[in-house]
C-alpha cells in the first residue's frame, strides 16, 4: 500500500480544491475505497476526507426529496419520507451489504463503487478498467456474474450498486459542486474506455441527489436475486415503478441491476407496457424487449432467463396480476 496524504476539509470549496491534485480521491464511508487500496487494485496519493462537510441531510421540500451525499445508507433506508414516497430506494438499500456497512457507507460513494469483477479486483490479472488496453480475461474466462447488457469487447463487468438502480427508476438527479446531472446520464457504458464509469470530472464532488415525489415513484418496488440470503451483490435485480389508471399502465419505469455494465433502464420494456393493460402477455413482451439486445458468454446465459422471471414476478406482485 502506497503512502498517501490525508486532508479533512470543512467546506465544499476546499474539498474540491484539494481534490484537484492529480491522484486525489474523496473518501466518505470508505467501505469500498479502503478495500481497493489495501488489495492493490487502486492507489491514490491524496485522500480527501469529506465526512466533515455538511452534506448528510435528507429533506422533502416543494415536491422534491433531497438526499445529501453523506447520508448513510441506513439513514436513507429508514427515513419516513423515503419509505413513503420512494419505497424502491429504501428497499434497494435494505437489500444492500450488511447493517454494519450500511451504517458506514454514504450514498454518494455508493453510486461510485467499483465492480466486484474478480479480475478487476485482482492486482495480478490484466483488466481494461484498471489498465486500458491490457485485456479483459472475463470475456473468455469466468463470467457467470457478468453483464449481458451494455457490454463491449473491452469490458463486461457489472455495476454493483443496488441504490443506483433504484435512483434510476425514480428519475433522480445527481447534484455536484458544479452542475445537475440526470441520473440516466450519470453512468456510462464501457465502450472502449471501461475505466470511465461516470461523467464526473476529476475532483468533481457529488453533493447529493434530488428525487421528485410522484405517484409513479410512490408505487415502486425492488426485487433482488442472489446466491445467498443477504450480504451479497445481485445476480439479477429489478426496480419497477408503476402508475396505473384502472387496468392500464399509465406510466412505468423498469431498471435493472446485476445484468448490465451500468444501472440499466429499458425504454423498450417500458414501451411494451405503457398505455397497455398489465397482463401475462404484456409482461412477457416487456421481458422479451428487455433482453432483445442481450449478449451472453460461457457462464451467464441464465441471466437472460432469470431477469425476465424477476421482471415477471415483480410486476405481478406490484400490479396485482395473478
Amino acid at each position, binding site marked *: *500500500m*502506497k*503512502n498517501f496524504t490525508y486532508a479533512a476539509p470543512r467546506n465544499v470549496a476546499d474539498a474540491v480544491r484539494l481534490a484537484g491534485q492529480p491522484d486525489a480521491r474523496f473518501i466518505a464511508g470508505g467501505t469500498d475505497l479502503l478495500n481497493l487500496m489495501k*488489495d*492493490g487494485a487502486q492507489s491514490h496519493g491524496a485522500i480527501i476526507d469529506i465526512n466533515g462537510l455538511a452534506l448528510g441531510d435528507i429533506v422533502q421540500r416543494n415536491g422534491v426529496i433531497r438526499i445529501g451525499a453523506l447520508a448513510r445508507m441506513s439513514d436513507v433506508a429508514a427515513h419516513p419520507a423515503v419509505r413513503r414516497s420512494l419505497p424502491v430506494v429504501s428497499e434497494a438499500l435494505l437489500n444492500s451489504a*450488511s447493517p454494519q456497512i450500511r451504517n458506514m457507507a454514504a450514498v454518494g460513494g455508493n453510486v461510485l463503487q467499483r465492480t*466486484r469483477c*474478480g*479480475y478487476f*479486483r*485482482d*492486482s*495480478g*490479472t490484466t483488466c481494461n478498467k484498471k489498465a486500458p488496453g491490457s485485456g479483459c*480475461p472475463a470475456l*473468455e*474466462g*469466468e463470467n*457467470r*456474474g457478468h453483464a449481458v447488457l451494455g457490454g463491449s469487447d473491452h469490458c463486461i463487468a457489472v455495476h454493483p450498486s443496488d441504490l443506483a438502480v433504484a435512483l434510476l427508476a425514480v428519475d433522480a438527479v445527481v447534484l455536484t459542486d458544479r452542475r445537475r446531472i440526470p441520473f440516466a446520464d450519470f453512468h456510462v457504458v464501457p465502450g472502449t474506455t471501461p475505466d470511465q464509469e461516470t461523467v464526473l470530472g476529476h475532483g468533481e464532488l457529488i453533493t447529493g441527489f434530488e428525487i421528485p415525489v410522484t405517484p409513479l415513484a410512490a408505487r415502486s418496488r425492488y426485487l433482488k*436475486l442472489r*446466491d*445467498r*440470503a*443477504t*450480504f*451479497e451483490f445481485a*445476480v439479477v435485480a429489478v426496480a419497477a415503478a408503476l402508475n396505473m389508471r384502472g387496468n392500464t399502465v399509465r406510466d412505468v419505469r423498469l431498471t435493472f441491476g446485476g445484468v448490465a455494465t451500468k444501472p440499466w433502464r429499458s425504454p423498450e420494456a417500458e414501451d411494451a407496457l405503457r398505455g397497455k393493460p398489465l397482463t401475462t402477455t404484456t409482461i412477457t413482451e416487456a421481458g422479451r424487449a428487455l433482453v432483445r439486445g442481450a449478449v451472453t458468454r460461457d457462464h451467464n446465459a*441464465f441471466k437472460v*432467463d*432469470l431477469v425476465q*422471471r*424477476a421482471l*415477471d*414476478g415483480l410486476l405481478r406482485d406490484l400490479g396485482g396480476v395473478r
Partner: protein
Amino acid sequence: MTVGQPVERVDGRAKVTGDARYAADRTLPGMLYSYLVMGTIARGRVTSVDTAAARAVPGVVEVFTHENAPRLTSDQHFMPLQGTQIHYNGQIVAITVATTPEQAQEAAELVRVTYAPETPKAVIADALTEVYLPANQEVIVGDPTAGLAAAEVTVTQNYSSPPHHHNPIEPHATVAQWDGDHLTVHETSQGVVNAQRTFASAFAIPQTNVRVLAPYLGGGFGGKSPVWPHSLLNAAIARQLGRPAKMVLTRAQMYSIVSHRAEFRQQVTLGAKRDGTLTALVHLSTQQLSRTSENMYSHSISSRMLYACPNIHTRQQGVRLDVPTSRFMRSPQMASHFGLETALDELSYQLGIDPVELRRRNYTDVNPTTGERFSSRFLLDCYKLGADAFGWSRRNPKPGSTRDGHEFVGWGMATEAHDHNANPSSAMVRMAADGTVLSQTATQDIGTGTYTVFTQVVADALGVPLNQVKVELGDTNFPPAALSAGSGTIASVTGAVNAAALAVRTAVVQLAVSNPASPLHGLPAEQIITQHGYLFSPDRSRRESYRAVMARHGAPVQNTSSMTNARGYSTGAVFVEVRVDPRYGRVRVTRGVGAYDAGRVMNHKTAGSQVIGGFTWGIGNALMEHTVLDRRTARVVNPNLSTYLLAVNADVPDIQAIFVNKPDPVSTALGARGFGETPITGVPAAIGNAIFHATGRRIRDLPFTQDKLL
C-alpha cells in the same frame, strides 16, 4: 459434575475483550515484517525478477527471490523460492522484508517478475485421459460384480463438487524469533508439537530448541494443521537477518499457499434387493492432485464403514493438475459422503421405500470392511430421535406434493458420519499451595471449546469449582499432546487430563488422611469424597478444604499423565426442510434437526454449537460455497469473502441438536468420541434430497445455485 453441563466458554471473556492474544498480535522489539509476492502464472518458469524499485522503498531491508532466498527443504511440501519452476498460480515468487508492514507491502507491489509460461491444466475436465489410480487407493470387499448381478434394483449416478478453501476467520500468521540456535515461533497452528518437529527438521536443530505457541486460534478447518513453507521461509529470514520477523497472510494469499479441498467427481453404484437390502456398493472417485504431490484427502470412508453391504468397491483415482496441493478440509469425508447419501435417496425413490427406513434396513453394528464390531453405535436411535423431532412421519413422499404460496416445500434427510483421530497425549495438572489448579497440555483450542471442557474435566476429577481451575494450551513447553484435527482433540487428550487430575486428587487426599493435623486423619483414602473444593469423610461429618490441606503441605502437588485412545466413528441423522421458489430457482433452508451419537457429550453447549456450525457450513457447501478457477490461467477468481460465499445468519434457520449421549465404553476420554466433523457431512445431501422432494429436480453438481433450478 460439570461434565455434560452447558458450561459457558471459560475463554469467552478474553476473546471478546481482546485479552486473548493471537499469533498476529505478537509484536517483538526490532521486529521486521515479511510480505509475499505471489506468482501470476500456473505453469512454467520465472525468467527474471526485478527488485530494484522494491528495494528503493524506504524501510525495505531485503527482497528475497529464488536467487537469494534461504535454502530450505521440506519433506511434506513443495518449497517455493528454491528454483525457477512454477507449479501453480499464486506460488510465492519473492518476499519483501521491511520495518513496517505497509512498506513491505508497497515494496511487494513493485517487484516485477517475468515468466516463460506454459499452458496449465486447471480442472479435472482438462485432463480426463490422465486420470490414474495411485497406490493403496482401492478397496474391494466381497465380490462387487456378483453383488451387482444379484441386485434387483440398481442406481448409478455421477456427482461432482468444486474446490473449496478453508477460510478460517483468523488469517494465517507466523512470528519467528531466534536466540542463537533456539527458535521461538508464534504460529497459527492446529498442532504445536507437529509444528515444533517441522521447524526443527527444516533448520536441523534439536526439537527441544524449538518452542511453538498457539494459545488461541480463530478456526483452522485443517488448513492450519501443517506448517506451510511461508512459515519456514519467514523463520529462515529472521535467522538470516538476525531480527524477529512477522508474516501475516492476506485473505487472497490464503487461496494458494495453505491448501484447499480438491475438486471431486464421483460415481456411485448401488445394487439392492426389492426390500432395500444392499447387495453391492461401488464408489469410484476422481480428485485433483498437484504436480508435486499425489496425496489425496477426500476419502470414501462412508462407503466402507457406514452400511451393511457384503460387496463393496471403493476406488479413489487422481489426476495431476497445475494447481496447489490439496489437503484435509473440514470434514474431508463429506465430499464422497454427498454422493453416497444422494444415491441412497435416489434408490429410495426407485424402491418406493422411505429414505429413513432404507437406511435402517442397511444398519450395521459391525464395520462392513473389517468385520469388527463397533464399540458403540446408536445410529438407529439417531434416526428415531431425529425423525420424531422433525415430524418426518407426516411426510408425503411424492415430489412437489407440498406448496405454500409461491414456494414448494421439501423434506430431506441423510445419515451423518465421520471418523475421528486419537493420538497419544499427555497433560500436567498442578495444585498450588493456595489450592488453585493449573493444567497444561500442548494441544490447542481451535475455537470449539477445549479450554472449557478441560476445565470441567479437571474440576470434576478433583472436586473443585470451575473457577479454581485454569487451563493452558498451545505451547510446546507443556506436555506433548494431539494435533487439533480430524475431530481428535477431546478424544485424544481428555484421558490424560483426567488421569493427571485424579493423580493429584489421590496425592492430596493422602496428604490429608496421613496427617494428624487434618480432621480427616486416619480415614481410608479411598472413602474420601471430594466436592466443592473440600475433602469430606464418607458420612460428611468431617471435612477439610483443599486449600487448607495444601497450605499445611506448603508445596504444590503435581502430576503428568499420558493416555492413548482408540480412533472412533461418530454418526447421526440430519433432517432438513427447504422452500424452493420455482419462479427464481431460489432455495431457502427453513428447518434443521440433527440427532447424534458422539459417545458422552462433554458440554451440551459447545457440542450443540458444533452442530450449528456444522449445519451452517453444510448449508454453504450445498447452496453457494465454491472456489472459482479461471480455466485458462488456473488462478482463483474469487479469493475473498465478498465473492467466495459462505452462509450468513439469514441463510441459517433454527437448528435443533439432539444427542443420544451414551458413553462409548472403549473411549478413555470419559466415554466421549471425537465429533466436530460429523454434523457437516450429511447436510449437503439432505438439502439436495429435500430439493428433490420439493420440486422433483435432482441436482448432482454442487453447489445448488439458482441457475441450476430454473
